[in-house]
C-alpha cells in the first residue's frame, strides 16, 4: 500500500495552496492532491469576485492569464432600484476560476506535490496513526495510507464526515445560488453590481460581475426559508427576464454558499478541513476564495510541522484551528451577528438607506462617513452597530 505524508482532497484554492505550502514548509514530505473532477477548475461554482489585497498575498494579478476583469467600482441597487455608487478605487478582480485554479495547482506541482485529477476518495478509515484511504478514478482503484488528510472538499465535505467532524449547517445559513454567464448586455464593465430586495433575492442578493465588456456572471443567492417556493434558478430567471431580457445565457451553474461561522472543530486525529468544507466563507459577503487560500496555507504548514514532530494527533493539529480563529474565524463571529441583525430590516429600510448615502457627495463616501450619516438618519441601525462592537 503506497504511503503518503499529506493527502489533500479537493483541488480548489484551499487544496492547492495547502499542498504547495506543505511542500514549501517541508520539502522532504510526499504530498498528493486528488481532485474528483476530470479538470482542476471545472465546473466553476463561483461568482469569481475577489478583493485586491487578499489576492495579492498569494499571486500577482497584473497581466496574468487567470484574471477576467479588474474592478474599480461597486454599485448597489436598493430594492426600489435606487442606484448607490461607492468609492472608486482598486477594489478587486473578477477571476477566471478555470485558469486560476489550474494556476494554483501548477504552483503546488512546482513545489513538488503530485496532483491526480479524475480521482475520487470513496472512503477512509483509521488504522493506528494513519488514515487508510480508498480512491477510485482514471487509474482504477487504489488504497493509500496517509499521515495527514486535508479535507478541502467543499460544502459537501465527506472527509469531515469520515473524520467524525460535524459539518452540518442550519437551513437559515445556507444560500442557494444560481448563476448564468450572460452575453450581450449593457453595464459598466469596471463595476460590480449588487442588488438587494425580498422580491429579487430573499435572504441574499443578486449580482452582476463583469467577465468583460458586455459579458458577466449574473447570479443570485437566496435563503429558501424566506423564499416563496421558487428555486434559486426560478428567482434568477425572473430577474434576468426583467433586467436583461435580450441577454444570451451561455452557461449556468448552481451551488450552496454556507454563510455561517467556522465549524466548531476543524481538526481530528490526522485530519484538517479547510475552506468551504469548514464553513470559512465570510458570512456577510459570501466571499470565500481568499479565505480558503489563507486556511489552506495554515493547514499545509500545520500538517508539515506536525509530521516533522511525529505527532499528527488531534491535540497537535488543533493549533490550526486556533490560528484560523485568530486570523479570521473570530471576525466571522462578528460578521455573523451583523448578518442576523440585518435580517430583521425590511426593503423600506434599505431604500431609505440608499437615499441617505446618495445625499453624501460621491467623492466623500468613505465607509466612516456613510456609517455616521446612516446611524443618524436610521436609528434602526443602532442595534446592528451594537452587535458589531459588543
Amino acid at each position, binding site marked *: 500500500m503506497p504511503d503518503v505524508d499529506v493527502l489533500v482532497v479537493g483541488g480548489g484554492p484551499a487544496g492547492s495552496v495547502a499542498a504547495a505550502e506543505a511542500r514549501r514548509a517541508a520539502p522532504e514530505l510526499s504530498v498528493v492532491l486528488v481532485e474528483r473532477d476530470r479538470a482542476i477548475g471545472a465546473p466553476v461554482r463561483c461568482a469569481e469576485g475577489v478583493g485586491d489585497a487578499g489576492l495579492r498575498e498569494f499571486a500577482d494579478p497584473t497581466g496574468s492569464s487567470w484574471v477576467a476583469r479588474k474592478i474599480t467600482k461597486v454599485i448597489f441597487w436598493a430594492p426600489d432600484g435606487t442606484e448607490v455608487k461607492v468609492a472608486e478605487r482598486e477594489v478587486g478582480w473578477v477571476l477566471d476560476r478555470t485558469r486560476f485554479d489550474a494556476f494554483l495547482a501548477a504552483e503546488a506541482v512546482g513545489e513538488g506535490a503530485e496532483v491526480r485529477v479524475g480521482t475520487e476518495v470513496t472512503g477512509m478509515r483509521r488504522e493506528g496513526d494513519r488514515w487508510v484511504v480508498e480512491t477510485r478514478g482514471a487509474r482504477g482503484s487504489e488504497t493509500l495510507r496517509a499521515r495527514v488528510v486535508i479535507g478541502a472538499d467543499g460544502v459537501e465535505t*465527506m472527509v469531515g464526515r469520515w473524520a467524525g467532524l460535524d459539518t*452540518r449547517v442550519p437551513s437559515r445559513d*445556507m444560500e*442557494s445560488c444560481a448563476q448564468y454567464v450572460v452575453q450581450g448586455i449593457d453595464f459598466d464593465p469596471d463595476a460590480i453590481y449588487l442588488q438587494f430586495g425580498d422580491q429579487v433575492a430573499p435572504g441574499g442578493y443578486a449580482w452582476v460581475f463583469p467577465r468583460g465588456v458586455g459579458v458577466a456572471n449574473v447570479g443570485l443567492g437566496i435563503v429558501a426559508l424566506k423564499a416563496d417556493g421558487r428555486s434559486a434558478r426560478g428567482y434568477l430567471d425572473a430577474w434576468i427576464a426583467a433586467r436583461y431580457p435580450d441577454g444570451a445565457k451561455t452557461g449556468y451553474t448552481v451551488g*450552496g454558499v454556507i454563510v455561517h461561522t467556522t465549524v466548531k472543530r476543524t481538526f481530528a486525529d490526522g485530519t484538517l478541513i479547510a475552506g468551504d468544507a469548514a464553513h470559512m466563507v465570510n458570512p456577510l459577503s459570501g466571499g470565500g476564495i481568499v479565505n480558503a487560500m489563507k486556511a489552506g496555507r495554515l493547514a499545509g504548514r500545520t500538517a508539515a510541522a506536525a509530521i516533522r514532530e511525529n505527532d499528527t494527533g488531534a491535540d497537535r493539529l488543533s493549533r490550526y484551528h486556533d490560528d484560523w480563529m485568530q486570523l479570521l474565524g473570530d471576525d466571522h463571529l462578528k460578521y455573523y451577528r451583523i448578518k442576523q441583525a440585518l435580517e430583521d430590516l425590511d426593503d423600506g429600510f434599505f431604500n431609505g438607506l440608499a437615499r441617505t448615502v446618495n445625499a453624501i457627495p460621491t467623492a466623500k463616501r468613505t465607509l466612516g462617513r456613510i456609517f455616521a450619516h446612516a446611524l443618524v438618519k436610521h436609528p434602526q441601525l443602532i442595534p446592528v452597530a451594537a452587535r458589531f462592537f459588543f
Partner: protein
Amino acid sequence: MRAVRPTEIAVVDLSLCDRCGLCLPLCPPEAIHLALSDLLVDQGTCTGCEKCIAPCPVGALSMVPNRAAA
C-alpha cells in the same frame, strides 16, 4: 432500527441534479452522500424532515411515499 418510520422520504432526480453538494450539510442524519460523483439519499437513514427540499437550487429533490413505512 427507528421505532417510527417516516411516511415520506426524499429522493433525488439525477436528470436535474447538478451534483453541487448543497444538500449534504443540510441533512441532519447525514443521509445524503455524493458517491462516485452521483447524489444518493440513503432511504433507511432519511427521516423525512424535508430540510433538503426547498434549498435545492434546481428543484431536484422531492418527497415520495416511503415504501418501508409501516
